[in-house]
């Protein structure tokens, strides 16, 4: 029963919280508290009585009941009393799970409102949408629980006090608001992808990306982001070896990739691109699909990848994209073709602190047979590499 409830929590938490935020007139703390309380009651009652047929309806009705109770008792808050008086008699219980309005999209856009700092957006998203506790979020971001508690507190205060609306932005605001939501979810994914201790962030990010893609079927970038996450995540088992060291794409054991997930990601990406509104996430997903669907590293379609990076550099120019494009050119046309591009990027000074710039350069020099220069670049990369696994990889590769 505990597992059953945990499963319902994973999928249902955000549904219930969103409904409760609406119901309490924007009292996020009360909404979360009542949702939490409903799950506590489920843990207490269900093992004896069995789970109800419509668990989400049961939980939401229970949470709502609790909220009414709490608001009635909060007699000092006259405004809320008026609200409570207005909604009497108590609304009937939700008849079924599907009768509960789905306001997760409203919740996503509110959590990721650009008037909140990025840190606040991320924390709110993890708490309200992914259902992580304050302690879990604090652990994921390696900050003291107290700090995270204050961050969440301030964020919820600002949502309430500044008048951030609980809604999906109207069509004319979507082009500037959707990227903020995508950015937060992808940041969560990356945070989890780079560090095995934070793997759960990847799962949470994919779960939320699925919700977003399902609720916004006409937004190709939402589909593209889900595809990108699935394609990256499918390679996770092969990404590190037994010692925890990073294994590069061409050395990965492709038998350990999750083929079903790759097929799903590639199909979602293809469907999105057919809408002819290519965006950065779709293009990155298409690149990831090229890698993931190559039977062996040697048969990767590098010219296709070069084309996709060229398109990406046009719509979302950045030095990192240029660097990746140079890597692809190095694979398609040889290291001598790529080195001038990498040197040009290095000359701008923008990526001086980015270890992959130096690692890429080292790799190209090694392949070009310029060993002494390669060693220098490996050393520069080693000094900047952020994790021990990456440092070990570079040492093996020739940093000495």
């Amino acid at each position, binding site marked *: 029963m505990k597992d059953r409830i945990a499963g319902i929590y994973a999928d249902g938490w955000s549904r219930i919280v969103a409904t409760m935020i609406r119901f309490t007139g924007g009292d996020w703390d009360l909404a979360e508290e009542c949702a939490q309380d409903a799950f506590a009651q489920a843990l207490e009652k269900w093992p004896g009585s069995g789970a109800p047929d419509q668990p989400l309806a049961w939980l939401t009705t229970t949470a709502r009941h609790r909220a009414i109770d709490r608001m009635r008792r909060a007699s000092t808050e006259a*405004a809320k009393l008026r609200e409570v008086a207005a909604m009497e008699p108590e609304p009937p219980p939700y008849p079924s799970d599907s009768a509960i309005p789905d306001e997760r999209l409203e919740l996503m856009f509110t959590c990721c*409102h650009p*008037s909140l700092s990025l840190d606040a957006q991320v924390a709110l998203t993890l708490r309200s949408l992914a259902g992580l506790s304050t302690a879990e979020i604090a652990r994921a971001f390696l900050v003291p629980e107290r700090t995270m508690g204050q961050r969440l507190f301030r964020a919820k205060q600002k949502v309430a*006090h*500044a*008048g*951030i*609306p609980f809604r999906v*932005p109207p069509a004319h*605001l979507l082009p500037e608001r959707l990227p903020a939501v995508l950015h937060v979810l992808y940041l969560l994914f990356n945070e989890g992808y780079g560090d095995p201790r934070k793997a759960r962030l990847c799962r949470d990010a994919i779960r939320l990306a699925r919700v977003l893609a399902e609720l916004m079927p006409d937004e190709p970038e939402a589909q593209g982001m889900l595809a990108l996450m699935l394609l990256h995540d499918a390679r996770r088992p092969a990404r590190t070896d037994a010692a925890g060291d990073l294994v590069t794409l061409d050395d990965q054991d492709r038998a350990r990739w999750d083929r079903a997930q790759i097929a799903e990601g590639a199909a979602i990406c293809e469907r999105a691109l057919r809408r002819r509104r290519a965006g950065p996430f779709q293009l990155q997903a298409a690149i990831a699909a090229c890698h993931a669907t190559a039977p062996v590293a040697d048969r990767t379609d590098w010219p296709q990848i070069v084309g996709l990076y060229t398109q990406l550099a046009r719509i979302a120019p950045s030095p990192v994209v240029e660097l990746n494009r140079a890597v692809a050119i190095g694979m398609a046309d040889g290291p001598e073709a790529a080195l001038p591009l990498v040197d040009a990027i290095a000359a701008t000074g923008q990526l001086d602190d980015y270890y992959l710039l130096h690692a890429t350069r080292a790799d190209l020099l090694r392949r070009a047979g310029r060993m002494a220069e390669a060693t220098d670049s490996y050393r520069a990369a080693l000094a900047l590499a952020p994790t021990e696994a990456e440092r070990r990889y570079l040492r093996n590769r020739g940093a000495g």
Partner: protein
Amino acid sequence: MKYLMLVCTDPDYKPGQDDGAPDVEDWVREMDGKGIRLLGNRTRPASDATTVRVRNREVLLTDGPYAETKDLMAGFDVLECADLDEAIQVAAKHPMAWSGMIELRPFWPDSED
């Protein structure tokens, strides 16, 4: 909701960044017409400001603004908006958002009436 819109100059502004900025008279007319702008005015520079403090019943005056910052505030407006999204759109239409900066401060609910 009511918002105080603090209209400020931006010391980092570079000429030309406000190409195509709207006209302030148009802004005032539009927002007054919609009932969004409740009141507002330009304020004289910091050099004309007087800061008032009462300490131990004694009135202390300082020539100039209270903060040792540059003279940023150039005016203010009081807005009545449905929510922050509307306030942001209103602020973004103000020419000073194009060359200066605008801070939106929500009112405490008690002071609304």
